[in-house]
């Protein structure tokens, strides 16, 4: 295998590394002060708005305004989702950045690796700081629009979480802003033996960021699952009189939402890093840059996909808790008004897994010696049998029955053991092609519903096509195949997608260890795959965010605060798709602008003069 090594014709690698550091530190910081100033302004604005909101909440009977374009719900929807998308990135990216910085630090004398990890971390940080301003701006707008359009409910919510909105959240936001500044401005000062301190600062930034997320998740999750009284008090009396702030924060879905959003933010950060890499690759004029951004995209995709593997399970946990809180939420999501939203989710997840595996394939294709890589036949057979066997196991022993975990673990272990004993192998090409087949089959199972109908709640037994309210039905699955539409089949399908992707990565890793890779020589179409992955991930986040919000039905706070406005009904999937696409495109335009502004226009001699990298055999010093 070849890895990045520094070729330093004009001096030692270390000298070139030091030269790069000196150049970048001198040239980049002043320009960046502008965006940091903007960030500060926005952060202060947000905090002021929070203060205004807290004061406004004390006003008696504030009057609602009607948003002229699309109505109040659409206005809140757009601003809230934009805010969450920016927030997701500024929380996900720092995890990515610090991990990259640590990897660079651990690279020690391997200056090439150190350089590329450092450059990656720094470039993503630059984009993050710009987007931090947008998070603050959209956060402020969100509060403003909420107060204008739903004043009574907003006042009620602020009153119930006064300490959160007026004290804790603003303080955390200020702390995060200060740490982000410190992190950025001390980047060059805290190098060499002080690097550990800079990494610690990055870790602190992540901790504060996560705490901020968890704090704001409290009111958000409370709206879905307001805490019930253990003493048998009715919900309204308990919330209005007895429940403490902590009771309200620590509700059924608080932790599931925290976990889901944390994992989702890492996926998001990874895929947006992939997007940055794709843009920069498309704009690269030198082999050096192409090599760097090819590698950059690879790392972004790897982190995005790595976290994506966990995301379905985190989502499942959140859905499980929602259903556990109130079983009527479950059919509303899966079988009633939102059932086709989940069909769409299935399609999106399938496309994301196909695209991420396609990227792995494109990356593998350019590895010299890939044809020598072989996998055990037992692994292939295991992969093929997973959907059927796991579906049968989970039908017999539904999750969370302990047998639902033991049997699959034993099954996988047995096949791996057989693979060690029986020497038959298959080529990597065959393995990849079968893996794609399994992704398609897995997704087809995921997408198979009881019926293609917008609501099947009133579905008659005989599967006839007329429904009570005249909804369009396109036929019901027959009884003999209805297991494909049940939860065990969906779980088996999700597991298949994850399992296949893991196998592909194992194979890829083997190819990297035993073959030769030249960065910068990947098929050009791969950059469009990275763009597609980021776009699809954002779109899916938007879709599932809508689902979570809509599970409150005609309540602002489920079962507690009715939404008396005329817009409390479930919107159609078609209408939602237009809004979600509009929001995604808007976000993309802003992110693209931020990337171009910070990285393309920021391209200077310092970057142009970085040491050239050429592939050399792995293990060479």
């Amino acid at each position, binding site marked *: 295998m070849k890895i990045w090594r520094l070729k330093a014709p004009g001096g030692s690698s270390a000298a070139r590394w030091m030269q790069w550091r000196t150049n970048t530190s001198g040239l980049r910081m002043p320009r960046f002060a502008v965006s940091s100033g903007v960030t500060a302004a926005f952060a202060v604005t947000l905090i002021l708005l929070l203060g205004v909101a807290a004061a406004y909440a004390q006003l008696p009977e504030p009057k609602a305004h009607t948003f002229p374009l699309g109505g109040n719900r659409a206005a809140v929807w757009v601003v809230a989702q934009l805010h969450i998308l920016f927030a997701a990135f500024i929380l996900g990216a720092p995890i990515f950045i610090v991990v990259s910085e640590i990897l660079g630090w651990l690279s020690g004398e391997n200056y090439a690796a150190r350089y590329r990890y450092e450059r990656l971390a720094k470039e993503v940080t630059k984009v993050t700081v710009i987007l931090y301003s947008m998070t603050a701006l959209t956060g402020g707008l969100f509060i403003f629009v909420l107060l204008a359009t739903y004043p009574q409910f907003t006042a009620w919510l602020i009153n119930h979480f006064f300490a959160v909105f007026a004290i804790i959240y603003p303080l955390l936001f200020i702390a995060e802003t200060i740490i982000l500044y410190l992190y950025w401005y001390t980047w060059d000062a805290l190098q060499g033996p002080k690097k550990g301190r800079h990494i610690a600062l990055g870790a602190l930034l992540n901790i504060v960021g996560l705490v901020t997320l968890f704090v704001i998740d409290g009111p958000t999750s409370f709206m879905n699952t307001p805490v019930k009284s253990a003493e048998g008090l009715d919900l309204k009396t308990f919330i209005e009189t007895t429940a403490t702030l902590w009771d309200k924060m620590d509700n059924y879905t608080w932790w599931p939402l925290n976990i889901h959003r944390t994992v989702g933010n890492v996926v998001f950060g990874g895929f947006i890093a992939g997007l940055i890499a794709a843009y920069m690759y498309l704009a690269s004029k030198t082999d050096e840059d192409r090599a760097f951004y090819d590698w950059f995209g690879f790392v972004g995709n790897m982190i995005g996909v790595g976290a994506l593997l966990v995301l379905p399970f985190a989502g499942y946990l959140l859905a499980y808790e929602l259903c556990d809180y109130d079983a009527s939420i479950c059919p*509303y999501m899966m079988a009633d008004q939102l059932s086709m939203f989940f069909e769409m989710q299935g399609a999106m997840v399938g496309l994301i897994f196909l695209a991420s595996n396609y990227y792995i394939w494109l990356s593998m294709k350019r590895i010299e010696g*890939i044809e020598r890589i072989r996998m055990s036949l037992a692994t292939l057979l295991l992969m093929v049998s997973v959907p059927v066997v796991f579906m049968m196991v989970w039908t017999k022993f539904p999750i969370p029955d302990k047998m639902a975990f033991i049997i699959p673990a034993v099954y996988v272990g047995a096949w791996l053991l057989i693979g060690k004993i029986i020497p038959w192998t298959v080529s990597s090409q065959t393995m990849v092609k079968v893996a794609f087949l399994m992704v398609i089959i897995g997704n087809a199972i995921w997408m198979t519903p009881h019926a293609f109908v917008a609501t099947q709640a*009133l579905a008659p037994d005989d599967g006839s096509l007329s429904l009570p309210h005249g909804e369009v039905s396109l036929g*019901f699955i027959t009884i003999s195949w209805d297991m494909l539409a049940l939860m065990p089949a969906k779980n088996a399908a999700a597991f298949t997608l994850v399992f296949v992707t893991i196998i592909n990565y194992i194979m890829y890793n083997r190819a990297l260890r035993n073959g030769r890779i030249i960065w910068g020589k990947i*098929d050009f179409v791969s950059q*469009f795959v990275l763009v597609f992955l980021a776009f699809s991930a954002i779109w899916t986040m938007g879709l599932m965010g809508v689902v979570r919000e809509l599970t409150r039905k*005609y309540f602002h706070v489920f079962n507690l605060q009715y939404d008396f406005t005329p817009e409390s009904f479930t919107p*159609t999937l078609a209408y939602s798709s237009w809004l979600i696409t509009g929001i995604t495109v808007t976000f993309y335009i802003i992110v693209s602008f931020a990337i171009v502004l910070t990285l393309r226009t920021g391209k200077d001699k310092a970057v142009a003069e970085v040491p050239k990298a050429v592939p050399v055999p792995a293990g060479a010093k």
Partner: protein
Amino acid sequence: MPEEKSLLRLVVTKGILGAVIAVVVFVAAKLMHFPPVFQIMFMLYVLLGTIVYILLDAPALPSFTGAKAIAALVAFYALVSGAFIAGANVLPQYDPSVEKGKIDKIVKPKLAMTEKGKVDELLKRSEELNARSQAIMKRLETIGGAEVKSIAASTGSTGGAAAAKSAGGGGDLIALGKDQYELQECYNCHKIGGKGSVKKRGPILDNIGNLMKPEELKEKLLNPRAWMAEGFDKEYAKKLMPDKYKELMADQEVDALIAYLSSLKDTSVETPKPIKK
């Protein structure tokens, strides 16, 4: 890596193979009695698979930069956005007007119970009364005494009719109860007349009127832990039936629902036996 084939050759060879597989899948799905829409879905997956396998072996895309790259990106975004919107539009759509009607029936009485609702209602009534009195005054000013008597008589008769309607009041309690059954979406877990949940979340209720007295039904509705349906141990243990109805439903609504459930006495449908807990 094996030598790359031309894209055209790939499309033709894999396209033919994909078409053959599509036909096989279509026939197999038909023989297995999948409805037509599922047959179409499986064929679409074959099409997707064909595209994927063409892409896997497709020759590398030549690189380009500058305006061409920007144009390609914009076109790509437009294509992906269009595909996502089209996908969402092709799926069956829920009709919001159905839910709007339901929400009105549920939410309006709740709004009326709030302070704001009461004030709004009073304001509305006073505005109506004001408008009416103004109209009467206007007519009194312009027409004679005979007309005045007629107005008084007509106002009185209208009021009497309204009062009579109100006294008749309850209307068909069972019909109101059936309405509540739908408004509270009980059908998501239960089945009556073969209609309702496709999953076995809760018991069939066709003969529940013969198995439980009205007060027992009420006890179950307001305190789901008080009774369990035979064979629903897991569901009972998971507390699947929400315990929110005592808070969300008014007394009259509960009574109407109980009246409806008590009227369900179809002995031909096997209904799980209730067990007191």
